[in-house]
């Protein structure tokens, strides 16, 4: 309304009255078009998700015959069945792998970020370049050598394989994220603590880390989103059914329950819920992480 209002108020000396009116109509049409695009887009984004959640409560008959209608009753038993048929196990595995990689990635990255922005390392530039280069290398290209490497060091088909890889491949991004924030902290803080007799390590744990909490939360949330959803490594490096994480487990579940749509959809809903909730709760931290990481 602001743009429309101001264009009407303006004493448009050069325009005739009809020109002004047509400008108003055109602006109004533009607005309508814009709003419909935004609205249509919101529906397109939300509807498939809504369909997934609701269909998880239906039975096969309802899904096939009334695909658009809401479920006649809430069949929670679909969710219970999906849970028992594997989701509980995949869920547990994902929690382990995601949790461990969050702790490892944030701590190791914060530790390194501190070294990179506060201490003068011999060959410090080379280290920074090495980390930066890590951003350019992609997991897909490393699949075959990693398969050999993990087999030879005995990590193949263990949770450790995923924990180590999710940590290693995300360290470059996380270091840059944390470093961008840490570098803004006043050096006077370190100096004051040094005068009080604190060692470097103590300063890191007691002063710097607590001050970095906002960015650590962002880093942890982004790592959670990544590790919870990662598929390629989990597909190639885990073959034991009982160790599979959710993304891979769901595909196995779909092929096992080919004709039981409601149960698979209930499983999908349960798999999607944690990251969606995390995003809704931690939106601000999420966006900070995304834009700091991308924008710098």
């Amino acid at each position, binding site marked *: 309304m602001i*743009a429309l209002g101001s*264009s009407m108020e303006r004493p*448009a000396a050069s325009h005739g009255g009809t020109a002004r009116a047509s400008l108003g109509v*055109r602006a109004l049409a533009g*607005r309508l078009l*814009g*709003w419909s695009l*935004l609205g249509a*887009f*919101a529906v397109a*984004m939300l509807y*498939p*998700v809504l369909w*997934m959640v609701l269909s998880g409560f239906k039975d096969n008959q309802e*899904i096939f015959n009334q*695909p*658009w209608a809401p479920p006649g009753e809430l069949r929670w038993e679909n969710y219970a069945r999906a849970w028992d048929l594997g989701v509980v196990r995949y869920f547990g595995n994902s929690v382990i792998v995601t949790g461990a990689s969050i702790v490892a990635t944030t701590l*190791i990255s914060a530790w*390194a970020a501190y*070294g990179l922005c506060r*201490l*003068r390392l*011999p060959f410090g530039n080379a*280290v920074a370049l*090495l980390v930066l280069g*890590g951003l*350019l290398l*992609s997991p*897909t*290209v*490393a*699949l*075959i*050598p*990693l398969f*050999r*490497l993990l087999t030879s060091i005995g990590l193949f088909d263990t949770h450790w394989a995923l924990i180590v890889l999710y940590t*290693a491949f995300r*360290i*470059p991004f996380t270091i840059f994220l944390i470093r961008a924030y840490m570098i803004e902290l006043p050096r006077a803080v370190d100096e004051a603590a040094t005068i009080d007799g604190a060692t470097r390590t103590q300063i890191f744990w007691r002063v710097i880390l607590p001050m970095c909490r906002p960015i650590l939360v962002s880093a942890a949330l982004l790592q959670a*989103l990544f590790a919870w*959803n990662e*598929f*390629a490594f989990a597909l*190639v490096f885990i073959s034991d059914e009982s160790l599979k994480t959710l*993304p891979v487990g*769901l*595909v196995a579940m*779909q092929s096992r329950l080919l004709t039981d*749509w409601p149960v*698979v*959809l209930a499983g*999908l809903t349960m*798999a*999607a819920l944690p*990251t969606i909730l995390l*995003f809704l709760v931690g939106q601000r931290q999420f966006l900070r992480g*995304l834009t700091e990481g*991308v*924008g710098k």
Partner: protein
Amino acid sequence: MGTLLTRWRTWLWVLPAVALLLVFVYYPIVDNLRLSFFSWNAFSPEPRFVGLDNYAETFADPVFWRALLNNTAYAVVSLVFQAGLSLVLAALLEELVGKRMRGLLRTLYFIPAAMSITVVGVLFSFLYNPRYGLVNAALDAVGLGHLGRAWLGEESSAIWSVIAMSQWQSVGYTAVLFVVAIQRIPREYYEAARVDGSGAVRMFFSITLPMVREMTTLIVILTISGAFLVFNEVMVMTAGGPDNSSQVLGTWLYRKAFFEDDMGYAATVATVIFVITFAIAALQLAVSRRRRYDA
């Protein structure tokens, strides 16, 4: 001596990160390049040097070219939606929508990106189902039922259906990045333009577009290299089929390595992916460095 010791001790700060990077990120990339000159499989686990044979085989293989073409299609379509549509959406959000409503819409748009690609892939394989899926049902409902088909099961439509789903998942994500970039533009620019009588479209082209150029470059680069690395959604929805029609480099490499046990060939495909994505990334660095000197 003492200072030298403490200087080297500072290495302990970066040691864990550097060690993990070297062993699990850098070594595999280098090793992959080496392996692409060898031939081996489960029965002869000792790699045998074959020179450029793998490369000759790869470049003579029509499936390889098909995969490369599909990756390119992925990049082109994604550019239109990620760099184009999402910028328009972000600009509309900022121009038209009040603060509270804007937050709500932004959240809605981002939700698909918060879901795992497997969840989305499996969900869409239901939506694309030829008999009971919503896509065909929707076409029926608007009288276009004759366009309905087995979206993932036909050679002509499989890869396009996967690409479409991928756009659904990531447009909102990119739009959010653009929203942030637009919010960094000083409000005064728009106010001044408004006083001069510029309309919304004019302001979009003369203020918004140039001011988000840096973010646009970044998104273009990320989108292109993402398109050449794509793996998950194709694997989940079609595994490259039917008849290799939706194969991309990532899935082709996976199939060659872990199903056909042709490791050397697969390492060669991986090297091709590496060269393409590394070139794109280097281009990005060059562009951003030049801009820094310009400024």
